[in-house]
């Protein structure tokens, strides 16, 4: 059976490679891999050919809700941006903090951390506050590729930050460990690593602008734009998120897409100039199309990989690695799995890994925290590279994707080492869990 599955895996890799060589987009290359795997599997009746369409269609569903979040959040931010709110905020931030660089950087870091921490999605951080923060970073004299790097790493940390960490939640749900004890176990490393990242990448001023020039270089704020007009839509959004958290049994479950829609509607209401909503929505969808399609094809790939046994074989291979190699291998395995499967990676590799770690005396909660700090790095890796691509998009960086990714290597390495040490020494770090209870 191993041989058969191995052949299917090769077939899928080959289909991906051929599609890429033929200059097809990443999304279509993943689709090609999924279809090739499905057709190959049909030879062995795993799954039978008659079930292939159903598997392909069913595989389009795992990330349906994430697609709704992306669409509504991007549309909301497009509205805020179009109404001049973004420019207003950045101008204010530069006025206040231009001369105290470290404080400015830390404030911007916290601004990126909050939306991701609350929703568990780094993409929300980028979509909601990415554009204005990018502008502010640029005004501080940080070049675009470093700006993109800061956004990407900090947004990833935001996703890992408490209270909501989706990797940890998937792992807890799958291993029947309660999702408690993560506040400091995740919070402390996230803050330390975030501070390190913004200071490492942002402390050096590379542009020659002084404060006046920086302000002059920023786009003008449209007449009539006031602080409250920017603030109100965000108050609506965070109000709904926080209301749900504070009075969970009195508030209905809104869900992020509705929260973003409500915020978008408010932004339109309070905007001093009324943007063309239809045009804006159409453009938003066009811009998002590759990302949305990625979610679709990754789900299909995942479905085919499981139905054919490829996913199981990979999971088996990871669990069978000798322990020391496994610890070192986490540095590659975890981010790459995220790059290929996004959150699916937590279920496929994470659940058996945690069971295994637990059985050899590691502390499961700390080990989950450690892994879930490493996973977000994979959101910068192809084929999906969800947060990496969003970071490049909002920071307006025009260079190649790889030149952006190279900028992140030092924080990347530090995060990797931290998270592996957290797993290895999880038993010694269990006091963090106790503090958090």
């Amino acid at each position: 059976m191993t041989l058969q599955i191995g052949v299917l895996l090769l077939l899928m890799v080959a289909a991906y490679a051929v599609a890429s060589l033929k200059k097809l987009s990443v999304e279509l290359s993943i689709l090609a891999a999924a279809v090739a795997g499905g057709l190959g599997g049909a030879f062995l009746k795993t799954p039978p050919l008659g079930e292939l369409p159903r598997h392909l269609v069913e595989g389009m569903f795992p990330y349906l809700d994430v697609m709704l979040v992306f669409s509504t959040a991007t549309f909301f931010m497009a509205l805020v941006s179009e109404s001049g709110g973004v420019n207003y905020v950045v101008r204010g931030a530069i006025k206040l903090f231009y001369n105290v660089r470290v404080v400015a950087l830390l404030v911007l870091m916290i601004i990126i951390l909050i939306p991701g921490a609350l929703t568990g999605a780094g993409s929300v951080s980028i979509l909601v506050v990415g554009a204005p923060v990018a502008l502010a970073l640029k005004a501080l004299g940080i070049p675009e590729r470093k700006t993109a790097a800061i956004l990407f790493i900090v947004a990833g940390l935001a996703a890992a930050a408490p209270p909501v960490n989706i990797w940890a939640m998937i792992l807890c749900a799958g291993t029947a460990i309660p999702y408690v004890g993560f506040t400091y176990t995740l919070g402390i490393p996230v803050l330390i690593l975030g501070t390190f990242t913004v200071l490492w990448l942002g402390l050096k001023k590379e542009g020659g602008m002084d404060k006046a020039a920086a302000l002059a270089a920023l786009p003008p704020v449209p007449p009539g734009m006031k602080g409250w007009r920017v603030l109100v839509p965000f108050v609506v959004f965070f109000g709904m998120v926080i209301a749900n958290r504070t009075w969970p049994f009195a508030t209905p479950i809104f869900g992020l897409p509705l929260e973003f829609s409500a915020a978008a509607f408010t932004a339109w209401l309070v905007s001093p100039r009324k943007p063309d909503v239809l045009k804006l929505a159409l453009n938003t969808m066009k811009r998002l199309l590759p990302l949305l399609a990625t979610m679709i094809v990754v789900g299909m790939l995942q479905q085919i990989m499981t139905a054919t046994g490829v996913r199981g074989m990979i999971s088996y291979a990871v669990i069978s690695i000798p322990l020391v190699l496994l610890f070192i291998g986490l540095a590659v395995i975890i981010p790459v799995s995220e790059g290929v499967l996004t959150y699916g990676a937590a279920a496929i590799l994470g659940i058996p890994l945690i069971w295994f770690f637990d059985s050899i005396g590691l502390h499961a909660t700390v080990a989950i925290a450690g892994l879930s700090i490493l996973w977000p790095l994979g959101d910068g890796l192809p084929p999906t590279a969800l947060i990496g691509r969003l970071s490049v998009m909002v920071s307006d960086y025009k260079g190649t994707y790889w030149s952006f990714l190279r900028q992140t290597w030092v924080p990347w390495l530090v995060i990797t080492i931290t998270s592996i040490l957290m797993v290895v020494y999880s038993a010694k770090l269990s006091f963090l869990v106790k503090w958090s209870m």
Partner: protein
Amino acid sequence: MNVIMIFYYLITAALVCLLGWNLIREKKSANDMILGLLVMIPLVLRLLRVK
């Protein structure tokens, strides 16, 4: 079906319309046509309450 769920069907329907409109306007890229259609499939099946 409660009010909030109805909102979700409306959001989904809006996305299908936007994707469809973009698809109709698309003249150049076969890639974008395929991606647009792919994204529409699960949204349509959700609207039809199949899955």
